[in-house]
């Protein structure tokens, strides 16, 4: 007797992925059709197919520029994260510093990026240094604020336990405060990773010898919109990928937080 194979029901995750990809493909198709039917000139809005062709034809240029920009963004993010975590630890150890440090941090955070970037370019030149500094400046604040909450909001019963064990401040930091603040680090990284790309691009727009920001600036001044959109496409894709990497790392490293 022939056996009948039952179709496996679609899981929630598969359905969600299908919907996401369906929306992306639908939006790109609508864009393509709209540009072709409406005869929109490429210097106003290039069709996705033209953007893709431009990207493929200039792949090595974009790859080289991407390496520079992502390198600056990731280095800046690393420095910003480390500085944010270190300042949060200092403030936790010496609460008297909190008011002064937070005032200074808010001052840095409130100063427009576009105002600082040209100054750094004048002082440090067209190399990677001003971009890394700008990226670190925009990324350290979310890390500082989140990690500070993570280090300071420990359940009183856990603090009692460590105090009953006569733990010193370093033991308390290593065994309790730092692991407890890990979910907060990842919450901050989800915000600061896209900010790192923005920081690097804005800094490159103010003067750079390479990078995606420079390519975008050149394309913008020549009204070469296919090139500009190709760079935007790379940045958007990289932002999504970095977010996914952060989320996956969070699931692995902070498993106890997501599952509890």
């Amino acid at each position: 007797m022939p056996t009948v194979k039952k179709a496996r029901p679609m899981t929630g995750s598969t359905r969600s992925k299908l919907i996401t990809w369906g929306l992306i493909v639908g939006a790109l198709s609508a864009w393509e059709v709209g540009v072709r039917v409406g005869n929109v000139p490429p210097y106003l809005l290039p069709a996705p197919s033209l953007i893709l062709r431009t990207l493929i034809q200039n792949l090595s240029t974009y790859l080289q520029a991407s390496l520079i920009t992502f390198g600056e963004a990731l280095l800046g993010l690393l420095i910003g994260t480390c500085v944010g975590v270190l300042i949060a630890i200092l403030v936790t150890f010496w609460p008297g510093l909190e008011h002064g440090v937070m005032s200074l941090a808010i001052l840095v955070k409130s100063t427009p990026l576009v105002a600082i970037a040209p100054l750094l370019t004048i002082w440090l030149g067209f190399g990677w240094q001003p971009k890394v500094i700008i990226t670190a400046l925009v990324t350290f604040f979310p890390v500082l604020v989140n990690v500070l909450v993570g280090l300071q909001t420990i359940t009183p019963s856990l603090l009692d336990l460590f105090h009953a064990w006569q733990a010193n401040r370093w033991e308390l930091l290593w065994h309790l405060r730092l692991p407890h603040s890990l979910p907060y680090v990842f919450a901050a990284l989800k915000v600061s990773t896209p900010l790192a790309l923005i920081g690097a691009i804005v800094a490159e727009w103010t003067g750079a010898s390479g990078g995606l920001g420079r390519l975008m600036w050149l394309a913008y001044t020549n009204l070469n919109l296919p090139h500009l959109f190709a760079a935007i496409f790379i940045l958007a894709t990289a932002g999504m990928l970095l977010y996914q990497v952060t989320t996956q790392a969070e699931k692995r490293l902070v498993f106890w937080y997501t599952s509890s």
Partner: protein
Amino acid sequence: MDVHLKDLTFLYPNHDQPVLQGLTLDIPSGQFVAIIGQSGCGKSTLLRLLAGLLHPTQGQITFNGAVSNGRSRIHTVAWMAQSPALLPWLTAYQNVALALRFARNGTPPLMSPEEALSRVGLGDYIHEYPQHLSGGMQQRVALARLLVQGASIWLMDEPFSALDELTRENLSNTLLDLWQWLKPTILWVTHHIYEVVRLADRILVLSPRPAQIAADIGVELPRPRDENHPRFATYVTQLRKSLFHANGQESASNDWFNT
């Protein structure tokens, strides 16, 4: 290890009324002491003072005649609270091993984390994370953590009060077994009168703030204790009367007792 409190007074900063005032008490080594009293009377404060989590405003706490301060205190007193206070990023084994790491003082430990977890009935769950364990199992891990410390005084602040009746009884039986095996001095804060009479050697009834010892009742019932023993009910009644008396009330009706 003997515990001696001499003229112990504790006042929270910016408060007028002390929580404890002039408390003097001797607890011989190996005694199972229950501390009972109205909510907020200072039972937990007394335990926190003994654990070194608070410092007396006046008076002195000595263990075997000596003042214990700093790192050595972990070898003298072990602390267990209502919340199991387990680190969620560590397995049951790692949580217990961390306590052992803090308690290590050059001498061989009393037992390994595996042995401690087996003793409390969690031998098959040593690699589980706390969030995968029930409330009762989490408190068992906390009990295993207390065991590996090798301390001779156990301070227990309502450790089983958040658990259901059956789990609480099972855990208190485990605690009784461990006490009979190791004979630590136990100071145990609770609100459960039956449990107190079933487990303790001595019951201290505290008065409302500032806390004084309103009654000091020795329980002289053979172990294992039977709740149907006629003297068991006598102790329960005596304890209830003492509680009411400590709070300035005449006595309670039997209806109230039975609720």
